[in-house]
C-alpha cells in the first residue's frame, strides 16, 4: 500500500518535487529559475532543497558557467519512486 511521504508532503517541497518530476529523467533545472518559478526566496528554497537532498530525493550539482556559479537540481531515482508512491497514496485517500 502506498504511503504519504512526510518530507514531500510539505507544500513547498511538493511543488519542488512536482517541478523536477515533470522533467525527463536526468534533466536538471537551474536553482534561480526554480525559485522564481515557485516564488520562493533563495534562503527558503535552499532550506527545502537541503531537506530533500539529505533524504536522497534530489541531486544538487554546482558548476561554473561563464565564470559564474550555477546550481542545477535533478531528482534521483529514489526521489522519483517516493514521489510516485506519495501521489499513489494521495489518490488512495481521494478514493476513500
Amino acid at each position, binding site marked *: 500500500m502506498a*504511503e*504519504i*511521504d*512526510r518530507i514531500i*508532503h510539505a*507544500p513547498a517541497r*511538493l*511543488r519542488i518535487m*512536482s*517541478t523536477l*518530476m*515533470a*522533467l*525527463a*529523467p*536526468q*534533466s*536538471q*533545472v*537551474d536553482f*534561480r*529559475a*526554480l525559485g522564481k*518559478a*515557485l516564488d520562493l526566496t533563495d534562503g527558503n528554497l535552499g532550506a527545502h532543497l537541503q531537506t530533500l537532498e539529505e533524504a536522497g530525493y534530489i541531486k544538487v550539482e554546482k558548476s561554473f558557467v561563464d565564470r559564474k556559479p550555477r546550481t*542545477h537540481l535533478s531528482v534521483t531515482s529514489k526521489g522519483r519512486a517516493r514521489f510516485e508512491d506519495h*501521489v499513489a*497514496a*494521495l*489518490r488512495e*485517500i*481521494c478514493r*476513500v
Partner: protein
Amino acid sequence: MASHQPKKIKIAVDGPAILCITECSMEQDQAPAITPEEARASLAEIDRIVLLTRQTIARGGSAPIVILWGVIWMIGYGDMQFFPQTPHWFWAILDVVGIAGSFRLGRWSRESPVKHAHGGRIGISWLILFAFGAIWFILLGPWSLNAPQQAKYIPDLDRKIAAYWATVPMFAYVLMGLWLDRFFVWLGAFVTIATLVGYFYITGYFFLWMAVIGGGSLVVSGVFIRKNWK
C-alpha cells in the same frame, strides 16, 4: 489519529545534543493525517506545477521562431496572391531564411533554465514531422511533369501544395496542445478547417486567405506562448 501532545525532539546543533520541547501536529515517525480534500488539493497542485513546467520547457525559444514563420507565411502566401508570376524558388529563399533564423533564435534561447538530458526533443519532433511531410511531398508530387502538363493534368497544384504544407504544422499543433495547452488544439483545428474552407470555397483569394489565417495564426500563437508560458 495524530497526537497533539507536545513532543520532545532531539536536535543536534554542532555539538552535544540538546533537548527542546516543541508543538508537533503529528508524530515524527507517522505519516501525516490527510483528509480527502487535502489530498485532492495536493494532486491538483501537482498537476498545475507539472503543466507549468512542461510549458516552460516547450516554450524554450519557440515564441520568436513561431512568429518568424508566421511572418514568412504572410510574405510567401501574400506574394503568391498578388504576384503569381514570382518563381517558385522565392519560397525556397523564404524557407532558408526561416530555417537559418530558427537556428539563430534557438541559440539565443540557451538561457533556458532546464538542461535537457535528451536534448531538444521538441525541436527534433518538429524536424521529424517536416521530414515526414517532405518525404511524402517528394514521393507523391507530379515532379516528372513539366509546368504545362501539371497545369493540364493537376489543376490548382499550387493551392494543393499550399494547403498541404499549412495543415502539416497544424496537425502537430493539435497533438502538442493535447499535452501542453488546449489553446493549440483549437488553433490547429481552426486553421486546418479554415484552410479546407479556403481551398474549396475561396479559390480566387486562397493565398491571401492563407497569408492572413495561416501566417496570422502562427504570429498569434507565438505571442500567446510569449505572454502565457512563463
